[in-house]
């Protein structure tokens, strides 16, 4: 199980822990497979993450970037690494780096499909 950001949640994933709203109200219990509707509800309630059975962030990332060639992905990553003073030693910086990379790749992929 792993904490997955809202954006990376997909229908069919199974909750490893209950999801609550900001005020502590239960939105969905553990063991429930997610549906599109659940994801919408999470977003409305400002939920930013959920604990998911059998998934981890690296696995999700590999799936997300499968559209890009290794060279393209590496180039984006290297350019970003060059600008970050530190992208791995604290979990805060690692997360900022991960999201920045993800968003860059998404922009890149969009551009690619438009051409």
């Amino acid at each position: 199980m792993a904490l997955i950001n809202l954006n990376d949640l997909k229908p069919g994933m199974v909750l490893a822990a209950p999801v609550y709203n900001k005020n502590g109200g239960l939105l969905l219990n553990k063991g429930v497979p997610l549906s599109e509707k659940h994801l919408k509800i999470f977003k409305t309630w400002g939920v930013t993450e959920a604990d998911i059975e059998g998934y981890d962030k690296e696995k999700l990332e590999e799936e997300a970037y499968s559209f890009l060639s290794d060279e393209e992905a590496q180039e984006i990553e290297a350019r970003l690494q060059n600008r970050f003073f530190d992208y791995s030693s604290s979990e805060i910086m690692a997360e900022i780096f991960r999201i920045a990379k993800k968003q860059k790749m998404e922009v890149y992929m969009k551009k690619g499909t438009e051409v």
Partner: protein
Amino acid sequence: MSTNDVLSSIVKKIDTLPTLPTTFAKINNMIQNPKTSANDISDVVSKDQVLTARLLKLVNSSLYGFPGRITTVSSAVVILGFNALKNLVLSSSVFDLFQVTGKSEVIDLNEFWKHSIACAVASRLIAVQIDYGEPEELFVAGLLHDIGKLVEIQYLQASFMNVIEKTRSSKILIGDAEKEILGFTHSDIGFLLGKKWKLPLSLNEAIACHNDFSQARKFPQLVSAVHLADILVRAKEIGDPGDIYVPVVDASAWDSLGLRLSQIETIMERIEEGVNDALKFFKREN
């Protein structure tokens, strides 16, 4: 000349910098007087056409839930409240201030400006995530945090060019290059300008300490939010703050915000949209 002499000579030059419109000072003073009524404030606001237009635009936006129905300045003032009004006047003034600064050989002012707007937007997004009482205060703090660089661009062109060069050749942040070349930073200058403009202390602390959280005394959350906003905007490469680097988030600044890691993505993915909205909002229709 010692560092202090240079600084004080700059402060003198600041006299010739575009000043904040007197509307801000007036409203700021009036708000501090408990006897001030909404009508008193409305009289002052009404004399400024651009501000009036923006005020009505804001209260008629979906944010307040009276779309298109508020037509008088006095009802707008009542709906918005004095503090939110003060923040609107300030961001409105700063926005216009940036528009008139003209050209610079050293840095693309539009890109520099975009960095400030993005920091304003990101600071406000952080405010929402941490349930900060006055999100608009954080918007203004983000907008103003690099105001000292604007002074450098105008009055220290040659040195500022060296500073920019230095950030590239030595791979250091603009603040560190400033310390080496000038002996002071844009935060120092911004702080002096803020004092001259009689900005609220909270905003001036954000200007002075956004790169050095350990100096923040009275408003740690506000300063932390701007500190983090700056780093997120740099990570996303929106606009040009003068150097291309992404510094490390101060651990105690992070702790003072009480954010969860997953909220970083929520904030980062909403910045572009907020920047576009802000640009539309402040655009002068003339």
